[in-house]
């Protein structure tokens, strides 16, 4: 940034700005660019992961405000630590999951320190291993949902989380029942492709 001070000043010659990342750039590519302080890549990564990170934080902290804070801290940590990510060691999703989990655990500890509340463990609740497993499943599924085309994602959301029958989905979207079924099948197949080898 240059201020028009009427004084002599040193001026760094800015490097040629990198072109914005492609919308379909991989998460690994984006992280590598974030390590080089690429804000566009950071924004794209944010858009891809904010919902799944918020879901993860909300499951664990059970408080929207604290979950929001944990998400903010997570992305600050991603910005800070992106240079430590090594693409040759594996995909970006588990690395990001670890960053998010650490931020959430920190927030969880703060919550316990300030309130003195020990989380109540109810008989029948999943143990830590099961909880971690289900959290990771939800994390990856929610992230994969972001990859679906809008028309496929909406039939999934209406069918699974709005309680709509297939006929009701068709009526709601003003499309034939056969189209709803085709899109649902396509969505499930696409999810299977996206999650192949990670959860199955």
């Amino acid at each position, binding site marked *: *940034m*240059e*201020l*028009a*001070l*009427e*004084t*002599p*000043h*040193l001026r760094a010659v*800015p490097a040629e700005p990198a072109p*914005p990342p492609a919308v379909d750039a991989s998460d690994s590519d984006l992280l590598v660019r974030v*390590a080089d*302080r690429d*804000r566009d890549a*950071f*924004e794209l990564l*944010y*858009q891809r992961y*904010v*919902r*799944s990170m*918020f*879901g993860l934080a*909300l499951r664990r902290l059970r408080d*929207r405000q604290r979950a*929001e804070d944990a*998400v*903010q801290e997570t*992305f*600050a940590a991603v*910005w*800070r*630590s*992106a*240079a*430590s990510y090594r693409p040759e060691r594996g995909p970006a999703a588990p690395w990001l999951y670890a960053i998010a989990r650490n931020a959430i655990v920190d927030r969880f500890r703060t919550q316990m320190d300030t309130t003195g509340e020990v989380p109540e463990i109810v008989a029948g609740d999943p143990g830590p291993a099961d909880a971690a497993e*289900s959290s990771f*499943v*939800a994390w990856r*599924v*929610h992230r994969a*949902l972001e990859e679906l085309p809008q028309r496929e994602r909406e039939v*999934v*959301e209406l*069918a*699974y*989380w709005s*309680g709509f*029958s*297939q006929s009701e989905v068709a009526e709601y979207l003003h499309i034939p029942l056969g189209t709803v*079924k085709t899109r*649902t*099948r396509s969505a*499930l*197949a696409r*999810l*299977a492709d996206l*999650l192949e080898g990670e*959860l199955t």
Partner: protein
Amino acid sequence: MTPRFEDLIEGDVTGAERARLEQMHELLVAAGAPPELSPRLESGPTLAMTLSKPHKPFGRRIALLAATVAILAAAFLVGYLAGNRGGGLASARTLTLTGTHAAPSALASLQILPSDTSGNWPMKLAATGLPKLGHKWYYEVFLVRHGKVYAPCGTFIAKGGGRGVNVTLNAPYELEPGDSWIVTRQHWGGHTAGTVVLRPTT
């Protein structure tokens, strides 16, 4: 109510493909609905997220330290010369701001006028290309010092649709060489700087 797989996928899908789709169905049921984002999270990454210093290898830290010392020495020299010329911040100056990813068509100039006798620094912002924001949203100008958001300098809204904005703002703070400004998108009730829409050209 959880949908039944048999109601979603017809009987013509069989064998391994059916098993594969059913597994995804079970994962969706297990994952549950993704949460609704608050306006704060929906609005994108904040400047605060990108202000934290990156972790650098130790060797690079020493090089950075040496570079920092050199820059500080140069900054001191510039400040010393400015002070001795009697100009410095007393004279008007203009910054050019360009739109970020959040407002790629935006462009603005921010003219910092000489301070009044009370120490107010009036400034004139002329911006184009800022989109009209929704209900409960507005733009805010922030003073940035040493790479961090330092203080607010005023708020405004834009009509969008190619119409420009001309507003007069004020920085009631003692300004320093190196101070800069950004414009953010804010939601009512937000207490921190939101998504940056305009930042100084480098």
